[in-house]
């Protein structure tokens, strides 16, 4: 039904939206669970559905967008798959997050970061999609979290040093050994 994408500039009421995102792949069980829960959440729900087959009826949806920022700006809570990029960008913005693992991803790796952040109280891990509405309500009831701060990457310093050694035809083993077991904060 609502094949028109949600207008990103349209302002919403005070409460904001529940934004459901599955990233670039498909995660129909999450979309279906959120769609079924939508009438009970008390806020408008909008979906980004990726390449999935399920088309939600409980709110506006869009397949892919160049940037999720306009949605994040209006979101009171984000409901998302467990992709690392999404988890980090939502937590860095200080938006309450409900994460669900996509069990179709290779060796169920999404459990790793979701579990890590859930243990630290950074997000709510919805392990049972039939109880997604409880998880969203808990996320809405919690105070707005402090934005997550991660140190800026220094990977390029290490890789640049190693590539420099190759460019100068130095011993690459010695160059690699300089960084073995090191921890740059």
């Amino acid at each position: 039904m609502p094949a028109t994408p949600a207008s990103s500039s349209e302002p919403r009421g005070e409460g904001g939206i529940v934004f459901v995102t599955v990233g670039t792949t498909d995660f129909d069980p999450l979309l279906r669970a959120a769609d079924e829960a939508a009438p009970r959440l008390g806020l408008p729900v909008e979906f980004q559905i990726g390449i999935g087959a399920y088309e939600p009826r409980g709110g506006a949806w869009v397949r892919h967008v160049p940037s999720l920022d306009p949605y994040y700006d209006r979101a009171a809570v984000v409901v998302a798959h467990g992709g690392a990029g999404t988890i980090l960008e939502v937590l860095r913005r200080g938006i309450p997050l409900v994460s669900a693992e996509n069990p179709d991803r290779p060796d169920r790796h999404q459990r790793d970061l979701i579990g890590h952040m859930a243990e630290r109280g950074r997000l709510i891990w919805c392990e049972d999609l039939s109880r997604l509405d409880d998880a969203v309500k808990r996320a809405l009831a919690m105070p707005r979290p402090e934005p997550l701060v991660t140190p800026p990457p220094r990977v390029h310093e290490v890789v640049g040093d190693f590539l420099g050694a190759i460019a100068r035809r130095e011993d690459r083993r010695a160059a690699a050994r300089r960084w073995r077991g090191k921890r740059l904060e």
Partner: protein
Amino acid sequence: MTDGGESDRRIRILIPLGEGGHSKEILHLVSLLGDRYDYHYMMVREDPMSTDRLPVKGRVHRCHRPHLKERHQWKALLGYGVLALHSAGILLRARPHALVHAGPAMTIPVSVLCKIFRIPIVFIETGSRVHTASRTGRFLYGLADLFLVQWPELQEEIFPDACYAGLLL
């Protein structure tokens, strides 16, 4: 080779681009490394990512994409065979001085070939790995010259010889 001398040569780096998160990480690294190097990118034919999104321009080499979830295992194996042939062709054309990547599994054939041809390998374990290693990561731990992780926990718990230098995601 035409370059040489005392100062740094301009070197060629081969960057395999896998899927979503892996590509995002490695392209962020390319943007941080800047244009001091000549980049060659290896992408699967079906990759929907536009080459406009490459932070530093470079030659794009297309390759076959094997499917691990293939119903018949021999089909997946055959897919990796085709990818290995493409990878060898790309190495001959690009003649890189180093291979830099962050997975996923489609980077394994090119990594093995680089090891055989003594081309240095830099591997960054993907940022979704905090306490558990990816299979590609475990494999590359024995292969890579320089091995980085994006969480200190992973260095402590699984890869003690790795270097931790922050998150690329």
